[in-house]
């Protein structure tokens, strides 16, 4: 086997179409084939956002896949260093726009733990409630988009119908539809509006019914199964090695979930069901997603039963300063483990705020997952390793 790398310009037909394509001619004597280098993204429907995957194709088989990230890098960590802790909350819910509440919660927790602040009981319960609604919101998005990428165009419209309702619900409490900015250090922006809990209870019933429809629509579909079963199998040890978390990790059979292993807020008071898969393929990942919606709805129901009255905020000094030191807080975000490593030098803005985002680690495993897969399977894999590009690039 000898590999000849032709220069750019010596492409397919001189002066004709395809000129300039970089081709690699390999093999001698046998059937000679050319690897094709293909850029998926940064603008591509399957990368929902601006992820770019450079793939080398042998026919339709991927020889090598290299994710290229950073197209959406907005330097949140740097920006955070020049803002005080209250402002950071409005900042961090932006990188993963589908899990805004869970992200801001992480920062608030980090600052609170550093300040050793006691957050009112009701605020903690509401945080759990909102975090779970946010999780449902997020998962619905991916339920829809995964189907869409596989060519099933209907589920996404159904999913968005529910998303609309839930967004309306959360908007009534937070004033935001995407970037809620509802958490504050020491509590919440304000209490829930009247009727929120009743509406929540009604909504959980609705979404539960609809969720089973999605299950029928996609999980029961033979073509869907054919497209996702045994596609993109991620072994558990590799997943851990890459720091893959969330539904993608759970699909491999590891039930590592910060809500269970290191409960924050009031997750210790509720029963959190963590669905796990068996094989770690795309189908499992999707199933986990649907199961997690149900699990979240269960948690919401428990919160509705237990939420106490009381204040939702503590009074803070005018200037919130975290004492000197460092702390790492991890939360189970919809896409996986979100973490904030906060190094403070005692000022009102952090010395260093490291955002550990689930998507970054998940996407870093992409090279492993995509190798030797078919181009069409790449879509199934990209769609089932749930990520948000803003969360990757920060």
């Amino acid at each position, binding site marked *: 086997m000898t590999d000849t790398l032709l220069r750019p310009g010596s492409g397919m037909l001189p002066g004709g179409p395809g000129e300039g394509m970089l081709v690699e001619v390999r093999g001698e004597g046998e059937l000679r084939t050319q690897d094709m280098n293909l850029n998926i993204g940064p603008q591509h429907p399957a990368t929902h956002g601006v992820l770019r995957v450079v793939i080398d194709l042998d026919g339709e088989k991927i020889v090598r896949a290299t994710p290229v990230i950073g197209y959406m*890098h907005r330097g949140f960590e740097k920006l955070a260093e020049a*803002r005080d802790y209250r402002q950071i909350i409005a900042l961090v819910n932006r990188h993963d726009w589908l899990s805004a509440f869970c992200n801001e919660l992480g920062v608030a927790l980090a600052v609170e733990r550093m300040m050793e602040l006691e957050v009112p009981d009701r605020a903690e319960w509401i945080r759990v409630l909102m975090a779970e609604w946010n999780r449902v919101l997020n998962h619905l998005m991916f339920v829809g988009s995964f189907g869409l990428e596989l060519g099933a165009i209907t589920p996404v419209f159904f999913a968005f119908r529910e998303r609309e309702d839930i967004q309306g619900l959360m908007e009534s409490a937070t004033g935001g539809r995407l970037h809620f900015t509802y958490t504050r250090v020491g*509590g919440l922006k304000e209490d829930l*509006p009247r009727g929120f809990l009743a509406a929540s209870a009604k909504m959980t019933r609705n979404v539960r019914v609809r969720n089973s429809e999605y299950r029928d629509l996609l999980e029961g579909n033979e073509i869907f199964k054919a497209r996702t079963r045994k596609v993109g199998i991620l072994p558990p040890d590799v997943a*851990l090695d890459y720091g893959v978390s969330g539904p993608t990790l759970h699909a491999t059979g590891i039930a590592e979930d910060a809500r269970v292993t290191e409960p924050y807020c009031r997750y210790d008071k509720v029963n959190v069901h963590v669905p796990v898969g068996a094989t770690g393929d795309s189908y499992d990942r999707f199933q986990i997603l649907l199961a997690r919606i149900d699990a979240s709805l269960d948690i919401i129901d428990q919160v509705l039963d237990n*939420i106490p*009255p009381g204040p939702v905020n*503590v009074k803070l000094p005018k200037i919130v300063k975290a004492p000197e030191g460092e702390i*790492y807080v991890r939360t189970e975000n919809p896409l996986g483990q979100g973490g904030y490593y906060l190094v403070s030098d005692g000022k009102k803005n952090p010395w260093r705020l*490291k955002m550990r985002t689930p998507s970054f680690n998940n996407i870093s495993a992409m090279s492993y997952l995509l190798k030797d897969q078919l181009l069409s399977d790449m879509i199934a894999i990209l769609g089932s390793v749930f990520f948000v590009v803003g969360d990757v690039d920060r």
Partner: protein
Amino acid sequence: MTPEDLAEYFRDKLGARVTDTKVAHGQLTVTVDPEALPTAARLCKEDPALRFDFFDWMSGVDERDAGFGVVTHLYSVEHRHHVNLRAVAPGGRDQPRLPSITGVYRGANWHEREAYDMFGVEFDGHPGLLPRILTVENFEGFPLRKEFHLSTRDAKPWPGAKEPEERTSAEAGQSVTTIDTPAPVSAEDKAAAAKAKAERAKAKAAAMRAKKAGERAAAELQPAGGDHGARAAAEPQPAGGDDQASAAAEGAAPAPASDTATMDAGGEGLDKPPAPSDPDLAGAGEMPEAASATDAPLQADEGEAEETRSASPAAAGEDVPAGTPAPDEPMGAAEIADSDIAKDAAAGAVQGDVAAGATGDQAGEDEPVDDLAAETASGIGAPPSASGTPGVEAEGRHGGATEQSGDRPAAETPGMNADPQGRAARPADQTPAPGADDGASATRDSGQAVSATMPDPAAPDTTPGGDASDRPVESYPSPDAEPLRAQELQADDADPPVEPTTPSGEGERS
């Protein structure tokens, strides 16, 4: 194992290669010898008692003089314990290098690339740190190093650098070139606004002059200083003249001892109604925030919020000629809070929803709006969202200040420096190293800061314009938070005592 046990275990296994262990907030940080990082990582992963199989993240941390630390966070799914594996890269700030642990944890690959991209820490044995993972390929510098400045901060300082009350107390005394006197009486509003405008224009003109002078100086210097000198001279337009200019512009803001300075932006502060040291007014200024940020449930405030909001532009004083007598605002708000609607809503909330925790009906008690109540409303109720406004409105003050002060003893020209610069400069000089050292290291690292060491020759003989030449814009002086420390300490002292927490959270909205 508890973190303490883990620390002990690490010491047993790695011996002297563990240089430090620390347990804070129940989290263990093990500092290891840089050389031993892969060994330690392997131990973490493979030792059955540790079994740190989950690679969580890795991150650089700017460790000031010590260079850059790299923290690797590992977690054990099996034992459910964490460790922060920390190593300080040898090579200081110039050439930080660490051995790579990609051979142990595959996930470290991207994280090491990120650490390189953000801090310039090189990892020996990494399969390829380039192309840079997050920034663009021809990006210069390492963004998360403290000497790297946000360009927005260079253009406009961060108003949130100081809280309103810090600023007033601190600045009133120190401000040298305060152009405007205490905020004028309301009758003179317009005249004062016009005056401020004129002042700003003047300041701008001064800045332009300074810029030209700087350019001229640069042109002259070119043969002597070569390219870099020229750049250094030409770029730092914030020459002495500009200092004055910016001081002039800013001078309008620090209306001494008045909370009106909340609205930081330059002369705009003038447009607000007067009465410095009148807490009522302060309350008015911040009322909208208090209203939106208080903890009371939302039920009642549909109408209320709107009312306050509509009042807000006038109260906030941004560009809006303050025709409305500001002291009315808190009253108005209180009235609404006290109105039947609010009460009904609050009461209904209690019945209708378990959610109704904090209620608004306490508001009535504050009806005779005394100064204290208004103050409370603004100061205490506000914090959550108070963070929003200044930050959005404009960017920090001190960024630009440190920037301009550079590693040069700016205090030498006290007359020329307005207070933020002056104050910022002093601590910068006192702070150990970062300033000067950074300049040097940055020179080598990024090439952006080439000018940092150059301009000295030009310094002596240049007056305002030339003054700039020894303050290279790109010198990445001391970490921009640093000079603030002294300042903030002062401010802290001046902080009003923290309001005691009301147990139920009631009555915050008045």
